[in-house]
């Protein structure tokens, strides 16, 4: 490649596509690279939840709320309907601890924007008549949103291409070299891409991709397993799940291990965060069992499927005979402090990393804008210091 790009974006998942779209809106010459096709990593496996309720206070929450706001009007801007829908989320509370935690959230700052309420089991049936709440003490109500993740990917792709982004599928990155004059050369199996700036949004593969550079990025895989059923007549109107704090504890323990660079000694490295909802086509999307085991695998586990199906049937016994069309597993990036890696790399100031998001979809529009701001050397409305990729090597 003789020409020089303004920006090379590595990774054509949700974040990479959104970044490419934002860059092209600012009239930059953009090359979008992926080792495979569109959204072949975690993006196509995404459950499409636009979650804001569990954002941690601080920058994370600020970005989440802004992302939520941007997303609600995004389909008009992209000119494509990706099935964005405000949705009632119901989460069953099955222990006193959870009840106390939920009551605390009712007094928090997100309570009002997200319509937090506590419902009695009987009240919850008004929202979801087939929900069997026999085991629940109460049901936590919030108003969040969902999208069709595949349609969102396509919406970004279409808009980006229309605005002139050049797309290079099956172009695996092998390394980077510094050219001086504020240029980076991205070495790929299809030759060299020269660019002023590079944005890496390769999800769980980002650490491996950047491994040729002397940068410390303690990242691991989370394996998310999910399933989709046959299309049914309109049956469920909410997104229903469990209200559990298992994941947070697990993440803390495993994050510490990861930082210390040791293999986790925990016996149980997985947890279930049930969410079941009906998509516009009628199919039920059921997610997700999360496994923090850091070994990459490409097959689902029967245990994971069993946990998910068991929980769905516990809350919706009427779905017993519903047929499962497909199951899948997808690796997601996991960072020791469960915060994203968002910002330029230490010592490689023209390479920007954007990965490790906990709830990717809600953050995608704002992350894309921030990355584009960086690429244009514009002032960013937020201080991303908290999320700087360099933070782990500094102590």
């Amino acid at each position, binding site marked *: 490649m003789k020409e020089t790009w303004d920006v090379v974006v590595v990774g054509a998942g949700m974040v990479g596509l959104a970044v490419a779209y934002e860059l092209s809106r600012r009239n930059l010459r953009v090359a979008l690279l992926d080792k495979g096709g569109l959204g072949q990593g975690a993006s196509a496996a995404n459950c499409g939840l636009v979650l804001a309720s569990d954002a941690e206070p601080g920058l994370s929450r600020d970005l989440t709320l802004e992302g939520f706001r941007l997303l609600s009007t995004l389909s008009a801007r992209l000119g494509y309907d990706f099935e964005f829908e405000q949705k009632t989320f119901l989460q069953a509370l099955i222990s006193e601890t959870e009840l106390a935690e939920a009551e605390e959230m009712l007094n928090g700052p997100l309570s009002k924007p997200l319509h937090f309420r506590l419902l009695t089991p009987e009240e919850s049936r008004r929202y979801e008549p087939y929900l069997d709440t026999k085991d629940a003490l109460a049901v936590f109500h919030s108003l969040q949103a969902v999208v069709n993740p595949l349609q969102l990917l396509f919406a970004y792709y279409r808009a980006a291409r229309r605005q002139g982004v050049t797309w290079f599928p099956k172009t695996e990155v092998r390394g980077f070299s510094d050219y001086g004059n504020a240029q980076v050369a991205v070495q790929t199996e299809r030759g060299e891409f020269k660019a002023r700036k590079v944005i890496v949004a390769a999800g769980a593969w980002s650490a491996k991709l950047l491994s040729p550079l002397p940068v410390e990025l303690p990242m691991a895989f989370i394996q998310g397993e999910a*399933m989709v*059923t*046959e299309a049914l007549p309109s049956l469920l109107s909410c997104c229903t799940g469990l209200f559990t704090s298992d994941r947070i504890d697990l993440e803390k323990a495993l994050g510490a291990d990861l930082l210390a660079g040791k293999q986790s000694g925990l016996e149980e490295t997985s947890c279930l965060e049930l969410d079941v909802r009906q998509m516009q086509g009628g199919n039920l999307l059921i997610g997700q069992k999360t496994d923090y085991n850091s070994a990459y*695998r490409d*097959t*689902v*586990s*029967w*245990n*994971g*499927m*069993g946990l*998910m*199906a*068991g929980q*769905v*049937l516990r809350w919706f016994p009427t*779905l*017993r*005979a*519903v*047929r*499962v*069309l*497909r*199951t*899948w*597993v997808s690796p997601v990036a996991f960072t020791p402090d469960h915060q994203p890696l968002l910002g330029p790399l230490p010592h490689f100031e023209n390479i920007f990393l954007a990965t490790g998001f906990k709830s990717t979809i809600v953050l995608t529009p704002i992350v894309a804008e921030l990355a584009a701001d960086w690429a244009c050397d514009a002032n960013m409305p937020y201080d991303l210091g908290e999320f700087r990729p360099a933070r782990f090597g500094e102590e």
Partner: protein
Amino acid sequence: MGDRTAKVDVAIVGAGPAGLWAGISASGAGAVVSVIDENLRPGGQLVKQIHKFFGSAQHHAGQRGMAIASGLYHQAEAAGCRFSLNRRVYGVYGRGPFRLAMATEGGTEYLDARSLILATGASENALAFPGWTLPGVMTAGAIQTLVNLQRVVPGHRVLMIGAGNVGLIVSYQLLLAGISVAAVVDSKPDVGGYWVHAAKLAKAGVPLLTGHTILGVRGEERVRSALVKDLRSPRQPVEIAVDTVCLAVGMTPSVRLVSLLGGHLVFEGGKGGFVPAGGETVSGIPGLFAAGDASGVAEASIAMEEGKMAGICASRYLGLISEKEEQEKSRGIRETLAELRQPVRPVREEFSPSLSLFSSPVRRVIMECPQEIPCNPCEKNCPRGAIKIGRPITNRPQVDHALCSGCGNCVAVCPGMACYLLEYDRGGEKAKLSFAYEGWPLVHRGDWVMAVAGDGRKLGRVQVEKVKSLKAYSATSVVTVAAGPELAPYIRGMARGENG
């Protein structure tokens, strides 16, 4: 002539399942019985049936038709029946006794019988369309005779007309013989035969074209292609390249001997046409009885019960059993017949594993048995009593997975090949699926085979971990393949030949 006329208590015309059981039943009551058949071998249509039969253990369910035929023959011989084979009854003169005229190779023979049981079966219907006289168009019975009895391949690619049980079963038999089946065509909107029979074809990737009809065949000296039209669509017919068209479009009861005797016939569409009035006791003619397809086209298990019934009725007519004995013996048969004659409702069901399957423990029997059909070998062969069907026999099987030992007997004996065994290791990372397999090519441990889903979709290559072939499984193997947990619940068999 007098010298050549033998005398018996009961003459039975037809040595199929109905005739054989009539013989067993009448001989058991002490009658002198002669069973006459035009073929060299007794068994009727059973001798051509290489597939496993449905029904209950008492109807030899799980056995292959030809094995049932020889079993019944030996049973009838042991009961004292005499067999007059290779004889065609062309006339019956007189009613008391019935004097049967039989054409033999040496000329006519006569037989005097005090009572006559007609178990003459049915004849196949044909279907007329442009080109139907071309070589290559034949009925299902003819193709079975060629392939299953005489081991002659009539063609290499067959279009089956008729999705009743005969059409579905014969299609499957053709697949076992290595002949490819281009499609099964039926003008009705639903498959008329059992769902499990259709499922065997679907697994092999044979399209089931319901709501379609054949418009004609093309070819000069023999069939080269067939024109098939979708009845619900204005589109042009499609031309399917085949060298054989097989007709399985119903049967008509063979009632000519009833007519000859002046018996009264009534039309019953559900039984295939004109049938003798009065059921097993042909009304108006004392001592004349009918059983099996001749009294109304139905399944072989029904024919067997009707044969038993006719034998009892004849014994009572001859005064060999009392009225009380007759009632006692016939009560059970009538109950069984009532169960077996329950209409089988079509089901439209496509299977993928359900949520409840996914939520299950480590080992699980999958039973894809959605239709209420009379069948229970899975229940009878489960050593732990984990499968429950009970009465009526048309109940669908219920599995108590806590009792299941994973022996695979149900997988092997299910005549519909609709049982599967799904197992996972403790970590849930590896899975195994076992399915029933018969025919060619043979499969061995360690082979890599193409796994297929219930609709014939190719899922990917998997390795055979175990092949279990017990003698009791009657030439069926239980093949266990290892696959990933995302694939295993969907595997229903392996591809074979062109239809794979």
